[in-house]
């Protein structure tokens, strides 16, 4: 069952030159049909239940304006902001601790847990002592937690989009900047590259003669540098410590840039109504990015592997050239 509340308002000022559109929503999904794994002793492997309560609350805000219109020059801009907070209020009323694994793969778990949000990331992480030092074993390899622990939330805090069109006479330039702020992603690719010692990170560590760590041996000796091969094989491995490969999703990119020229055909006495040529580029560059790869790459995959980069194809940049002729 889904209960949904939506409130919106749309304002226009200065002869429509400035607009303001605001929406608030609150959606509660309850009693969804779910297949949950049974306890191992029950005699069946899984069962269907109607349970769960998931809420989504958020706001969407769009501001658009034409700040400059002077003679042949005009600038149109619009900014939109979206914020969604997903919350798992309850999973299974009969079992408060019920965990549903949306997907898991060798040390990575995407889960639904009461109190968390949809698809929270769980992974094995380092063990720390009470001084915040990474605990090592006798061979100077880091210990990993006994159980997978919460390492991040997929959803960003908010998204921003900024779209602009500047025109002067027959020329126009458009660009779109998108920003994602907050949220986490996780990368097997980075882990495996480290494991094989083919990442830049591991090469740099070899050049420096060690990986700088704040760690401690079982006997209490502090360790500040460890052998790169032994370290990266221990953490980067498929059986490694994936908590080390959780990245901030925050990124700002130039999503689109276009340049357009309207060919003045009206006076040429041709059987052509209008014509234009243009250049367009998409996914052009990052203005800011925290993760060592495009963190948005995996966001459209199935619900079980959201936010997981496992040797995915890199995202592509595209360029286009347009000629438009209307008869």
């Amino acid at each position: 069952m889904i209960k949904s509340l939506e409130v919106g308002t749309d304002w226009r000022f200065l002869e429509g030159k400035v607009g303001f559109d605001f929406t608030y929503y609150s959606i509660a999904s309850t009693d969804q049909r779910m297949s949950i794994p049974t306890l191992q002793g029950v005699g069946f492997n899984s069962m269907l239940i109607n349970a769960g309560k998931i809420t989504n609350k958020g706001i969407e805000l769009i501001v658009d304006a034409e700040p400059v219109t002077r003679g042949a020059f005009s600038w149109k801009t619009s900014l939109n902001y979206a914020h969604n907070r997903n919350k798992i209020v309850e999973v299974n009323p009969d079992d408060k601790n019920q965990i549903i694994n949306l997907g898991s793969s060798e040390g990575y778990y995407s889960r639904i847990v009461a109190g968390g949000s949809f698809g929270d990331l769980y992974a094995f992480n380092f063990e720390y002592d009470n001084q915040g030092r990474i605990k090592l074993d006798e061979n100077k390899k880091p210990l990993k937690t006994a159980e997978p622990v919460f390492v991040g939330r997929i959803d960003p805090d908010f998204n921003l989009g900024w779209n602009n069109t500047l025109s002067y006479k027959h020329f126009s330039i458009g660009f779109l900047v998108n920003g994602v702020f907050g949220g986490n992603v996780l990368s097997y690719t980075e882990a495996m590259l480290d494991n094989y010692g083919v990442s830049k990170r591991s090469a740099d560590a070899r050049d420096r003669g060690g990986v700088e760590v704040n760690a401690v041996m079982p006997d209490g000796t502090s360790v500040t540098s460890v052998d790169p091969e032994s370290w990266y094989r221990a953490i980067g491995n498929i059986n490694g410590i994936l908590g080390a490969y959780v990245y901030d999703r925050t990124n700002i990119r130039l999503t689109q840039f276009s340049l357009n020229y309207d060919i003045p055909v009206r006076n040429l006495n041709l059987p052509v109504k209008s014509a234009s040529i243009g250049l367009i580029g998409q996914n052009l560059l990052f203005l800011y990015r925290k993760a060592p790869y495009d963190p948005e790459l995996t966001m459209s995959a199935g619900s079980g592997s959201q936010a997981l980069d496992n040797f995915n194809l890199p995202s592509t940049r595209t360029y286009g050239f347009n000629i438009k002729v209307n008869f």
Partner: protein
Amino acid sequence: MKKIISIITLMIFLGACVSEDRFKEINMSGNSITPESLAQDLNFGSRFPNILRDIGFRIPWGDAQYGVDWGSDNFMRHTGTPLDEAGGRDMMSYYMVDYWNEAIWNTTYNSVMAPANVNKIMAQEANADLFAAWAELFQVIALSRATVYYGPLIYSEYGQPKKQFDYDSEEYLYEQFFDKLDQIQSVFQTSANNNVQDLVRFDASYNGNLTKWLKMINSLRLRLAMRIVKADPVLARTQGEKAIQDPVGLILSNQDNFNTSLLGGTYPVWTMSEDWGDCRMGSGMEEVLIGYEDPRIHVFFQPVADEDSDLYADHPAWPYKGIAGGAYLNKKDNYLPFSRLGTYFSPSGAGGSFRKILTAAEVHFILAEAKLRGWNGLNKTVQEYYEDGVRTSWEDWRATGDVEAYLSNDTNTPIDYVDPTDNRNSYNTKISITIKWDESAGNEEKLERIMMQKWIDSFQKSNEMWSDHRRTGYPRLSDVSKNDSNETWGIIPHGEVLKRYVFILRERQNNAAGIEEATKKLGPGGNKISTRLWIHPDKPNF
């Protein structure tokens, strides 16, 4: 014209009128099985073959690899792996990895316990006692194999609608296994007396031959009895002698071996060896089989190619090379030319269509130990059981050679192992036992000799041997090259072996209270890989 249309309409209408039976038939989905067609197979019969197959740990990317080939087969040094992406840390170097740790559990509960439970209920509802007993036998087989990994398991409470499941202690598990075997045996005996043929169509192991199943039940009882001989010598002897003295007898000839058919599937370890390059000979097999000049090596493994003869320069007459346990592995390619699994296991080979579970050779070696321990009802000598065990094993494995000459060899001993690509994995053999029976030797030496041959025969059915090794300390297998055990899941001191697998992650999370209770049943060591099982107490063998 109107008339014609009316007639046609009437005809269509009449044509659509069919009897009720026909109506159902027409409206039935072509893809689903009707209750009627299921009833021909007693509703549940057709579900048995898959469960029986799954007892055999047969999933190449699941239990057969994570649980067995990279588990007990590796601990027994039967096989080794060139796999280097795991070259960091893994179960083979005593480092806990959850999805490896749970592979056997998953098969046991998801592929055997749950479907067998459903079958048992359906069979009981239909008053089909034999099928119900058969389903329960599957459960005993599967659980008795899983408990050598984890120790306590869910059994007495299995199938109940509970919110928390308590694990049975090992002590209680074995008590139930024996009770259950009594019940199952009595149903099978009654059906055999009445010449019931119901299992024939569903039984790829014995073609419905109930006498063979009864021999299997006796042999399983004997195996479980010997397993607990150090933990509860009195119960072990009672149950062992019961199995020995049962008039139907034990699996003593290879015709009666209990194997599980792969139902047309490829031998999983063959896939790992040939398709994935994940499995090669184990260093222990090289050590022992070459030292003993044992022809079973030609069956178990393929020789190394001539162009790689430098790999076996340490014994040029024997072109085989294995990989150490818990080895340092820096490059998979270095190890791919090592000895692959024998063509015996290929799809066209003699052993490529089934998995061995309980064979005559194993029963002979158990009887040799039983006689050594003074159990009653055995009319041959320890030596005779030992030698018959070797003979039966040679026959089962189709070894070519002079087995009598082999049995009289009192000079050959295992050789040292050399890893030609990484000397950190090389070691000197710890085994000095010879082949020929020595009646004047002490009990320990006699036991070691029996275990040595039991170990060779147990290739590709290492589950029981892994338990025997932890129980007796024999054979004296090599240590892991690399020991990655740590305080989180238990430290295995140098020279010792991994004692058990821990309770699985899903249970630790979803059945936390049950796991807490189960952990208490493991004693002070707790839920760690360093905690000895109840069946493997740290005390003398005699």
